[in-house]
């Protein structure tokens, strides 16, 4: 740490301050939108709706139990599940940076739409939220599918409706099981907020890069790194508390 002038660090922090706020904002709003959206995507991914099934022969149509599988084939085609699968494949299979660019520049280059300056922030939020929703959806799905079928059966015999069963029996148990993978995603999101620089949205990393270029110093980037590290330290701490809070049952 020889040669670091701490007054210089304070100066950088002052300049980065506003950017930090923007980074935290992207982070918080992305979680706020992507977590519920992910649940919706997960439902679509698990959709068993097959509109052509009525054309199938009776004995093939009969579901086997609650977790039963219906024989596949053209007539067993599930359109919602299919579309959502493709949606998830694209969002997980292409770079988030590219997705941000498409969301921001797409409306103009594809449709000639003129969007206001404020769209920059909205584009960042759409890009992040949709991308993270795809990841969360798969986490939710794995959680939901890990709940034993006996839980559904016990609820069914007691007279719980489908939505009561999900809200009261399945969802709470799923929530507990998915905390570790969700923690992973949330930590990744903290670091991913820096990708907003491709849209020159003024979050912290964008500003840090600008200062670094202007002053020919690596110090601003170092300060940025420390910021992400501390941010994630806090996130990990909070997630651990959440995990502990759910530890009252197994």
């Amino acid at each position, binding site marked *: 740490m020889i040669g670091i002038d701490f007054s210089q660090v304070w100066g950088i922090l002052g300049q980065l301050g506003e950017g930090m706020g923007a980074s935290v904002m992207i982070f918080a709003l992305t979680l706020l939108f992507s977590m519920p959206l992910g649940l919706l995507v997960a439902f679509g991914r698990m959709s068993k709706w097959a509109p052509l099934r009525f054309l199938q022969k009776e004995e093939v149509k*009969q579901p086997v*139990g609650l977790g039963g599988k219906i024989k596949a084939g053209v007539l067993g085609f599930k359109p919602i599940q299919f579309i959502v699968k493709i949606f998830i494949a694209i969002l997980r299979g292409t770079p988030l940076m590219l997705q941000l660019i498409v969301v921001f520049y797409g409306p103009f280059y594809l449709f000639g739409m003129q969007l206001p300056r404020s769209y920059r922030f909205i584009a960042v939020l759409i890009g992040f939220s949709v991308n993270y929703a795809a990841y969360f959806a798969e986490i939710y799905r794995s959680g939901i599918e890990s709940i034993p079928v*006996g839980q559904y059966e*016990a609820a069914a*015999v007691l007279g719980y409706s489908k939505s009561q069963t999900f809200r009261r029996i399945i969802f709470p148990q799923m929530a507990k099981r998915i905390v570790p993978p969700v923690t992973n995603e949330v930590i990744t999101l903290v670091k991913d907020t820096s990708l907003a620089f491709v849209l020159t949205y003024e979050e912290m990393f964008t500003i840090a890069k600008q200062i670094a270029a202007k002053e020919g110093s690596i110090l601003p980037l170092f300060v940025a790194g420390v910021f992400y590290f501390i941010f994630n330290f806090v996130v990990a701490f909070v997630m651990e508390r959440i995990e502990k809070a759910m530890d009252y*049952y197994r």
Partner: protein
Amino acid sequence: MKVLEINHCNKKFGDNEVLKDISLSVSEGQVVSIIGPSGSGKSTLLRCATLLETMDGGDLVYLGEYAAKADAVGKAVYSDKESLRNIKKNFGLVFQNFNLFPHYSVMRNITEPPILIGKRPKDEVYREARVLLEKMGLSDKEDAYPFQLSGGQQQRVSIARALAMKPKMLFFDEPTSALDPELTGEILKVIKDLAAEHMTMVIVTHEMAFARDVSNHIIFMDGGVIVEEGAPQDVINNPQQERTKAFLGRFQQ
């Protein structure tokens, strides 16, 4: 009065005929045990009766109300959702693996269904739940979570959960198969007590001596059909069919 009636029930899984023209009826206060080797269809029959599986053909009737009715060609046609929801109130089911809700305390496992589904007053449900817990010898466990209980205790909670809904009859699906012999005894005792109170019950079990002692009627199933049925002493001690003799041979020695 007949609590449950099943007429000409058929069930296939793909090409596999699991239940072939099964008929049975259970009167109020009767205890019926269903015995038979694995794969004989006894659990499937129980799952059809409790609406966890759908029958392909036949009638399913609770207290004169049709849950499913055979049409002109014998195909089972199920009633609408609302009727089925009402019919479900007639019975409870105790599972082999208990299937308690792990995120609920013992008390909440027992009280949530009557309050939420039965729409009954909270204080009344809690009072009755405490009586049930006392009966099950679990008064000190109302705030415990299922993972803190032994298998036998969990099964007693699940019996209390079923009873809290005040069903007209109870089904037991191999209630002791997941328990060691010591814990099996405590569950069998609870079921015997219920029988003494004239609870209507259908029990799928591998406990032959218990089936003989507790039931009024025994059904021996194999290969998806009822091979033999009758009074417990007759079926267990003096079976007529070769298949029954072979199955019970081990037990009688």
